[in-house]
């Protein structure tokens, strides 16, 4: 209990001090996870929509696969990306290992299945409901997919936020491909892991509180935007 009180103190001290180093780490964390979520959304939402409305051989298997990949262990993703980007790996000449870009790639791979699988479910549910109506209007499947994505946009924002939460919270992938290099690839979660290693549990927990606070704030912002838009346009 005492440790938790200490951690709260640490968190407040860190925020109050507005430490330049901490700010850098927070900004880098947000840049990486938001970039990853943007990439995963741009690829994953259309992918989910297509799988929702199209009928093709192997579709069921693909759905099962996507759902299963939601449970992809970050460490495994980290290792795969590491081996690809390592100098000895196929993409080694790019020299991307231990850079923020490598971390974005790893997180994108990690959350792409989450966004694709959840949006597939959301859009398919809507498709079941409106299929006849859309068909009677003569909509092709492609148009139907776009319409349904638009109709379910508020649910899809939640899907994207779920992806962001996963990206911002994971440590296993970014610590492997980023290397936790001070000032270059050190983000919130890897800092927490490092401070835990040093046995500075209050500082680690304090950083954890800040991370949770940030994710909370982002979700709050997304929620208010959604509410405002919903009120305005019904």
């Amino acid at each position, binding site marked *: 209990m005492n440790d938790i009180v200490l951690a709260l103190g640490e968190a407040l001290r860190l925020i109050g001090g507005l430490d330049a180093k901490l700010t850098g780490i927070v900004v880098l964390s947000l840049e990486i996870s938001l*970039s990853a979520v943007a990439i995963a959304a741009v690829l994953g939402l259309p992918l989910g929509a297509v799988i929702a409305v199209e009928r093709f051989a192997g579709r069921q298997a693909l759905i099962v696969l996507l759902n299963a990949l939601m449970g992809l262990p970050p460490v495994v993703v980290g290792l795969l990306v590491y081996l690809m980007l390592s100098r000895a790996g196929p993409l080694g000449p790019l*020299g991307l*290992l*231990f850079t923020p870009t490598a971390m974005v790639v790893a997180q994108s791979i990690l959350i792409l299945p989450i966004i694709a699988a959840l949006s597939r479910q959301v859009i398919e549910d809507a498709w079941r409901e409106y299929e006849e109506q859309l068909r009677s209007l003569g909509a092709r499947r492609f148009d139907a997919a776009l319409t349904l994505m638009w109709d379910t946009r508020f649910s899809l924002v939640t899907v*994207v936020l779920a992806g962001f939460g996963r990206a911002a919270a994971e440590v296993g992938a970014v610590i492997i491909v980023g290397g936790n290099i001070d000032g270059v690839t050190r983000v919130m979660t890897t800092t927490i892991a*490092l401070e835990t290693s040093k*046995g500075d549990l209050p500082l680690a927990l304090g950083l954890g509180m800040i991370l949770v606070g940030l994710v909370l704030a982002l979700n709050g912002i997304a929620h208010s935007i959604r509410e405002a838009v919903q009120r305005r346009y019904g």
Partner: protein
Amino acid sequence: MVGKAMLVLFAWALTAWPAPVTAAERYVTVASTTSTEQSGLFRHILPIFEKKTGIRVRVVALGTGQALDMARRGDADVVFVHAREQEEKFLAEEYGVRRCDVMYNDFVLVGPRSDPARVGGGKDIVAAVRKIKEARAPFVSRGDRSGTHVAELKLWRLAGIEIAKEKGRWYRDTGQGMGPALNTAASMSAYILSDRGTWLSFRNRGELAILVEGDKRLFNQYGIMLVNPQKHPHVKREWGQAFIDWVTSSEGQRAIAAYRIGGEQLFFPNAARGNNPDAGSSSRPGA
């Protein structure tokens, strides 16, 4: 315009794309050990080097075995580790150019103050591990091919114990870095071998204290090597060598000696004088 929510979210995410590292930034990647990173040594000495040369040093801290593997794959320019036999193997495979001694400290046997195996006070580390085995007292092993793990395995061998076969439930193989392993030992009141640097900077000690120290067999030598540019042409030879030269120079050695926690010196510089690798690095018997 409708759909602001998504647009705002996307625009925000896209503009936040991390700025690419400027091509002008000069840096070397150093694969090193958790003990040098977590003890705070690098944070103390690197700014001095970076200020002097303008070359940034990016440290990736892993166990010695992993750090050497990382360099074998060509993902580091310099390795700075502490497991003599593994380093010699690395050199023999021609992944490293040459090895220089940098500094040493020592390992300490840490354990609960209650000391159920009664090893405290003595200096004989081999007798101590034998007693731990006989008492079947909980012992936490790194189990990660790190320099400390290698040193621990050597102690069991010296005690005539074949640990792989004779370990029981009392021997906890954690596969973790020094800090996490110390956390584990603290929470289960177990014995553990630690390098002194990490122990001194470790905060969550609980009931743990140093029980055995000062045995010659606890000597812990750190060495530095440039990764062979002939194996990996992209190795930043010039800057990597600049870092090696500085760490083994009198200025670098002074910076290492000046690093203290609570008045206690963590690492003792012992690079060969005149920065000549043949003068000291290969003649010293393995610690």
